[in-house]
């Protein structure tokens, strides 16, 4: 990728550990040190107990597709040559929700809502990566 969006993923960004985790093939989210509730994206306070301290922890990589859409218009320079592309909303088994892309869109008319998906990881640089999902059965 591309400086613009890559800049949003740098180590000094509040979500830096998440993007570094994806580079290492893991899904990292914040866990409140006080009430142990997990959350993502990063926030400075726990919305459950208002604690300011948290730790980045690894969570499971399996979930299900909740919703989808396919972009036919380029809102980002970096996606201009990828049109049209699909974004899915995934709910992981831990309840954490993520927008992400499919690992492959081959012959995909509509992503199957409810289907089980597993994360695969796409490095973007030495430092950071993206999380993509593949359908468990189809691959």
């Amino acid at each position, binding site marked *: *990728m591309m400086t*613009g*969006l*890559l800049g*949003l*993923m740098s180590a000094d*960004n509040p*979500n830096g550990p*998440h993007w570094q985790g994806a580079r290492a093939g893991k899904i990292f989210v914040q866990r409140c040190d006080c009430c142990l509730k997990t959350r*993502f*994206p990063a926030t400075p306070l726990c*919305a459950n107990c208002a604690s300011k301290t948290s730790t980045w922890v690894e969570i499971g990589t399996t979930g299900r597709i*909740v*919703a*989808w*859409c*396919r*972009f*036919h*218009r380029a*809102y*980002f320079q*970096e*996606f201009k040559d*990828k049109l*049209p*592309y699909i*974004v899915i*909303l995934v709910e992981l088994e831990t309840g954490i*929700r993520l*927008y*992400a*892309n499919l690992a492959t869109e081959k012959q995909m008319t*509509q992503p199957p*809502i*409810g289907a089980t998906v597993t994360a695969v990881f796409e490095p973007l640089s030495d430092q950071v990566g*993206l999380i993509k999902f593949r359908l468990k059965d189809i691959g």
Partner: protein
Amino acid sequence: MRSKAIVTGVGATEFGTLSTEDAYTLGARALNLALDDAGMTKNDIDALIVMRIPEYQRFSQLFGVDPDMVIPMPGQGRMSGIAMRVACSLIASGTAKNVAITYGNDGKSAGAKYGGVADRYAGNEGAVWFPYGMTSPGAVHAMLFSMHAHEYGTKPEALATIATTFRDHALLNPAAVMRKAITSADYGQAPFIAEPLRLFDYCLINDGGVAVIVSRASAARDQKHPPVYIRAVDSASALTGAAFPPSDYWRGAMSKVGTSIYQTADLRPEDMGALMIYDNFSPTVLFSLEGFGYCPHGESGAFVTEGNLALKSGRFPTNTNGGHLSESYMQGWGLIAESVRQVRGAADARQIAGPRNVHYMCASPITSSIIFSDSP
């Protein structure tokens, strides 16, 4: 708070690309029209709510007005119902006699865009989704429709019916920006933006201004127009999960607000003569019909396709001005102005035949609803 407040004045500028105007001049023109309509002068305003106009101080200087209270509010459609609720509260509590709300929008000329790195629909969280190409309120609504289609089998034909019906209404509205008829075939041939949504599922960004004056119900006898009672108004929020499409299509908030306003107004869906549904994107119309009890959950697609929203032949004429999809995206204010016209019997070729109870509803991270009526 039943019918403590009435709408005494309403004013709207023309809508479109108005490059010689800005939010201040549009808001000021609309407010002058609303004051004229109410038979008031600017000195009668004791509370002023300024919407989407960047600086309230500059607006007050420009308009030459020193109200006792000024409340600036952000230019978001979800705030329009809140502004109306605040105005009614100020009236009901005796804090103010006349509350003026003025909205000025120069988004078209200023090049306002939704989607992209500056998009704030998901707040700070947007930055986490941009690397996947996810952005814009339209895409969130596309996802909501994908969920509804999966859960209930809702067809794109329902969206086509919404778009073409509102366009038919706009043909009767000289103020509407879109005045060329569209067919279902046109709908289906229009390009996808965020699939499954197409061009005609999106509202129209334009310049324009709208102002509303809310006064004590006792002022009704001094009015040249038939009174427009704000028979009930309420709101509820679902902000904590607002970065994602809500799993319940905002039903929780709508159920709470609906129960409250139907009880306060002592009116039910079947008593309404027209509906004004916040249509930033066409699927919101479906969710609102279900959430406010016009049809059972999951059945809005069929309800719409059967023709219930059409002005002349439908059971619940909806967005008789053309709505945000075909009149102009005035973030709720065009719909509120049309509610007033319908209750007054001043909607010309668009005048409804049924009872003059008009139900405004906005389903969003802040859900709000108002029932306007010709009787208290």
